[in-house]
């Protein structure tokens, strides 16, 4: 297989669920060109989708109120940094702050026993990626950083 190049890829989408499929296509296409297993590609795809969905649903709450193209600042920026060892995906928005520190991973089995599923998106993000961190800049930009290493 060809060696993966170092590279930065930028993608900016309106905060609208219509574009989730596009983000998944770009991310999976990229991950497939790297040395990830099919299972890891599926995990990266799902984690990025869940992260973008959370931004649309919670950071920018009023999806139905904004125009199809999104409001002025209602966009999601996805910056992907790849090298032969790993992929880093930074997902940024200018919406509401997320209290990432106080989020506790739910006991998913207990959840399923009750047939509930709250918090599954974040559970997927945290479990499917190797590193997950959140930062809010002084000028109000939220960034969720996702890292996945290529298993040797």
């Amino acid at each position, binding site marked *: 297989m060809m060696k993966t190049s170092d590279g930065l890829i930028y993608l900016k989408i309106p905060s609208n*669920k*219509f574009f*989730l*499929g596009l983000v*998944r296509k770009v991310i999976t296409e990229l991950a497939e060109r790297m040395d990830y297993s*099919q*299972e890891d590609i*599926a995990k990266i*795809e*799902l984690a990025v*989708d*869940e992260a973008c*969905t959370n931004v*649309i*649903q919670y950071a920018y709450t009023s999806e139905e109120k904004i125009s199809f193209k999104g409001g002025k600042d209602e966009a999601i920026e996805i910056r992907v940094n790849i090298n032969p060892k790993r992929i880093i995906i930074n997902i940024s928005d200018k919406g509401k702050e997320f209290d990432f520190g106080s989020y506790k991973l739910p006991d*998913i*089995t207990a959840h*399923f*026993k009750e*047939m*509930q*599923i709250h918090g*599954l*998106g974040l559970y*997927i993000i945290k479990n499917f990626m190797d590193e997950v961190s959140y930062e809010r800049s002084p000028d109000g930009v939220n960034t969720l950083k996702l890292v996945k290493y290529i298993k040797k």
Partner: protein
Amino acid sequence: MPACEITIEKIDFEEPIHIVRITGALDAYSFPDFEIKVRDIFEKSGRNIILDFGKLDYISSAGLGALMGFAKIARQNNGDLIILKPTPKIGSIIDVLGLSKFIKVFWDEKTALNSFVSKAG
């Protein structure tokens, strides 16, 4: 091409079984349509649902959450909701999350249909 296409087939077994076939991606965008169609089955007194995932190539937490919610409603009405023929990709996600402990998965339609009979009998 739409992100997701849903067709419903009603089979008159001992009691009606609805096979919901989903093609494409079940994500936060396509999920409302899925939810409306399955709720409609419950509202018309259907309680036995087979979700055919044979042509489903993606599912996110919105869809997985709906599965759990609908399985709960089906069981409260003494019916059930089961999954048919998930692709390896979706099958492994369901396994990794431990969902297969709570929702039955079948690989052929006949066995899936018969699972409702043996339950009623």
